[in-house]
């Protein structure tokens, strides 16, 4: 029925368009030329088509939300009182039973009372299906006449069509915004549920992290500790190491490519850097765990240092390499955007190239560079796969890069992998962590945007 309805919508649209166009053309013939019309005949057609199809589309959306509820309710209502479901669980089970009988999957051993419910289901399905088509076509005809009646030589059909299109664009844009809002709220509500079990100050300022919940209430260690400070410290440490790698390397690579490199070198070097952005983070992850971490460990042992096999240094280094292209390509763009007149002025005063870069170009490009760094930081904070593989699992409050630390993202992954019950503090703490992470990156992005707005210099 859905397919028929969509086909009907297309047919209605085509028919309304052709009719409206002909009517618009007839005005042109009667009034002596297209130039006498306010809008071209095709806009007349478009206006009528939109007027006919839009109510059909709205009706379809309403029907999709409402129809199956009516059908289900009628099918359940047809059951005798003894078989009526009492709670949500039996409601779903009974409904599945009815669905199976109605679609003919189950033939033998059918309770006649339930089969009566199935008959009712089929009946109401037919009713709602036909009502979709009949009401939809009626609405289409109403819309068509409403649209077609308005047409005249002076009618502003183009403006009407463009208003419709504007609203469609607004709808498309709001999908992205509404999704973000939805994510925030879903995380927020779970976080509030978590804070009803564990006080927020204990979560934000506690220094013990061992998320456990007991299966029996008298079990040993039945109360977990949800102090997230070690996770924040670990995240910050790894992020700092990563930025120590990615910041200078990315910035210098960007400067070299923008200012020194010949077009030939640039054509080779830029794709190579962009390959880094294309490497899957899992690959970086096992590279960190299997190559970099043992290398750092053996190097440390050579100097007599005790290095954990999953050190923060290894994860941070590899993560730094991962975010080099973010820093370099964004900074490259900003440096290229600095106008040539500034460089020429500096060279004219006798400055060397590096002096020009340090004294003139970098200050001019600073807001863009800062925002590139901010984006790289939020990327590093949210990165999961590398730290899952290369960083530790136990919360460890330390700032020694040679020890194993854990990060927020690793803990979220650990808490949510596998089968979970979604009302224990252990599982809910993942949402609280996610919310903190989300909030942190949001604040970083906000700061980056503000910096760019505040210090942006508009040349030329």
């Amino acid at each position, binding site marked *: 029925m859905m397919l028929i309805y969509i086909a009907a919508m297309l047919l209605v649209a085509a028919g309304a368009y052709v009719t409206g166009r002909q009517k618009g053309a007839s005005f042109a013939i009667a009034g002596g030329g297209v130039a006498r019309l306010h809008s071209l005949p095709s806009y007349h057609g478009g206006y009528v088509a939109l007027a006919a199809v839009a109510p059909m589309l709205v009706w379809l959306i309403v029907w999709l939300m409402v129809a199956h509820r009516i059908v289900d309710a009628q099918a359940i209502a047809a059951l005798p009182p003894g078989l009526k479901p009492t709670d949500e669980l039996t409601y779903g089970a009974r409904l599945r039973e009815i669905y199976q009988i109605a679609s003919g999957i189950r033939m033998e051993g059918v309770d006649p009372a339930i089969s009566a419910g199935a008959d009712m289901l089929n009946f109401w399905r037919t009713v709602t299906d036909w009502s979709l088509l009949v009401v939809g076509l009626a609405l289409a005809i109403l819309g068509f006449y409403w649209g077609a009646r308005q047409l005249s030589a002076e009618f502003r059909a183009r403006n009407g069509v463009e208003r419709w299109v504007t609203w469609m664009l607004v709808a498309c844009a709001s999908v992205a915004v509404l999704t973000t809002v939805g994510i925030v709220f879903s995380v927020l509500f779970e976080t509030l549920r978590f804070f009803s079990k564990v006080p927020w100050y204990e979560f934000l300022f506690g220094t013990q992290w061992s998320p456990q919940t007991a299966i029996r209430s008298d079990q040993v260690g039945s109360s977990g500790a949800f102090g997230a400070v070690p996770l924040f410290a670990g995240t910050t440490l790894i992020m700092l190491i990563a930025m120590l790698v990615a910041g*200078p*390397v*990315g*910035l*210098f*690579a960007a*400067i*070299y*490519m923008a200012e*020194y490199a010949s077009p030939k070198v640039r054509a080779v*070097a830029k794709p*190579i*850097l962009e*390959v*880094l952005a294309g*490497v899957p983070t899992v690959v970086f992850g096992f590279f960190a765990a299997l190559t970099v971490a043992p290398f750092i460990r053996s190097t440390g042992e050579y100097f007599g240092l005790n290095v954990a096999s999953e050190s923060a240094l290894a994860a941070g280094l590899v993560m730094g*390499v991962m975010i*080099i*292209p973010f820093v*370099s390509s964004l900074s490259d763009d900003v440096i290229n955007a600095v106008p040539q007149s500034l460089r020429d002025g500096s060279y004219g005063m006798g400055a*060397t*190239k*590096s*002096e020009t*870069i*340090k004294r003139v170009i970098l200050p001019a490009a600073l807001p863009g560079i800062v925002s590139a760094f901010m984006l790289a930081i939020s990327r590093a904070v949210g990165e999961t796969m590398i730290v899952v593989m290369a960083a530790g699992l136990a919360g460890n409050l330390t700032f020694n890069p040679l020890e194993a630390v854990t990060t927020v993202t690793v803990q979220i992954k650990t808490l949510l992998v596998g089968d979970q019950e979604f009302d224990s503090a252990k599982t809910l703490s993942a949402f609280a962590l996610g919310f903190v992470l989300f909030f942190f990156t949001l604040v970083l992005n906000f700061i980056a945007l503000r910096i760019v707005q505040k210090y942006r210099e508009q040349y030329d």
Partner: protein
Amino acid sequence: MTDVTATTNRTMRHAMDSDEARARVRKRYRAEARFKAYGIGAIAFAAAFP
């Protein structure tokens, strides 16, 4: 007037030919080369990883 200009020119040339000036320029050019080397090093480091 002409005399004054001539003297300034001579002192200017003298200032640019002095040992300190040569040392300064050498230093600046070394800084230039170092800065360029940092850039090449950064790209080489990034390129060595994949």
